[in-house]
């Protein structure tokens, strides 16, 4: 296995978890109720824990004595491979929940396949993470239904979030040439194989939530190639500030 390809693939997995974890962490102390605040930050904690497992693996693969902190905090914007969906701002609670559900369903299906990987490290991370993600999916799915099938105002807000975030869903299934090589070598099913399942699950939840499934055929992508939205720079500025200002600092 070519380490460069594997590292590239691992960044795709890890950066999604990191950036979504960072976004959710912003809500600490700002959630709409104490229970949702705690739930969202618990989900953030799970995601950051999963990120650490991937980054430790990346650090072990590198020949440059990298640490997990180096790869988390000292890369430049274009070196992050997260999808655009996870960097979208916490515009309101409906956005937070919709973004989460769109990601959780993908995350769950992806980890199901990753569990059967030939790579023992990835297999272990997937088997650990999927237990956590099944809770995330249940939380975001329940809230999506509650908001959609709630008041006129909550329905309007969550429908807007669904409409706005829908364009970012297709990128979840995008794979680069290097990704495809890794998927093949490690015998991991490509995301393309569960794309129709993904949209079926999402559509049936939206229906149950009395929400309309957007009829959009234009999709936005770029994050996986390092071309991020304007929000990404702000996230990194916040996240990397301490390590950039005080290199090698430790808590």
């Amino acid at each position, binding site marked *: 296995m070519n380490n460069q390809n594997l590292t590239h693939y691992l960044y795709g997995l890890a950066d999604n978890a990191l950036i979504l974890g960072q976004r959710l962490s912003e809500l600490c102390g700002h959630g709409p109720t104490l229970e949702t605040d*705690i739930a969202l930050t618990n989900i953030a*904690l*799970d995601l950051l824990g999963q990120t650490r497992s991937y980054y430790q693996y990346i650090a072990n693969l590198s020949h440059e004595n990298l640490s997990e902190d180096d790869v988390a905090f000292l890369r430049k914007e274009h070196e992050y491979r997260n999808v655009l969906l996870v960097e979208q701002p916490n515009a309101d609670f409906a956005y937070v929940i919709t973004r989460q559900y769109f990601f959780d369903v993908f995350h769950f299906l992806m980890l199901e396949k990753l569990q059967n990987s030939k790579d023992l490290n990835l297999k*272990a991370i997937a*088997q*650990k993470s999927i237990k956590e993600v099944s809770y995330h999916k249940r939380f975001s799915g329940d809230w999506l239904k509650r908001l959609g099938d709630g008041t006129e105002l909550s329905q309007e807000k969550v429908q807007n979030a669904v409409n706005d975030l829908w364009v970012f869903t297709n990128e979840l299934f995008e794979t680069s040439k290097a990704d495809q090589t890794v998927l093949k070598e490690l015998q991991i099913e490509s995301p393309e194989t569960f794309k129709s399942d993904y949209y079926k699950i999402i559509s049936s939840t939206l229906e149950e939530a009395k929400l309309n499934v957007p009829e959009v055929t234009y999709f936005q992508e770029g994050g996986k190639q390092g071309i991020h939205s304007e929000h990404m720079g702000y996230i990194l500025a916040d996240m990397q500030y301490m390590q950039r200002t005080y290199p090698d600092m430790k808590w």
Partner: protein
Amino acid sequence: MKTEKLDIHNKLFPILKAIPDPEIPVLSIIDLGVVRSAKLEDNKAKVKITPTYSGCPAMDVIGDDIKKALKDNGFEPSVELILSPAWTTDWMTEEGKAALKKYGIAPPMDATSDKKALLGEAKVIPCPQCESTNTKLVSQFASTACKAMFKCEDCEETFDYFKCLI
């Protein structure tokens, strides 16, 4: 219920058994099931631990506590974090579950009852204060990622339930 024989050296066992979980101090790290093996070669004590949840912030503290306790007892400790096989609530000992309940945290149920309770389909989680099963889910996530919050509708106490993870 899976019961496994863990490879924990009998000289190290009492030392590890005396180390409390930093977030639930009534529970020993042995009873929580995070210690997966502890080997002794000459004076070198090699301990393997596994996290309950990926992001569990207690893992670093547990690792440091183990090193300190073993060092205090004259061993040269090393601690390795392993992910596989993934931790499950089945590894919690009966003694651990009893300690949890006494502390006011409802211990994990079997997977089927757990799912029904967390989906709000059945009232099955007994209140650790009054034993009533007339309890209601308040939130799927509570003070830590491994717990959910319930409320007893008889004694009106809210309590943590240690979620089942299998």
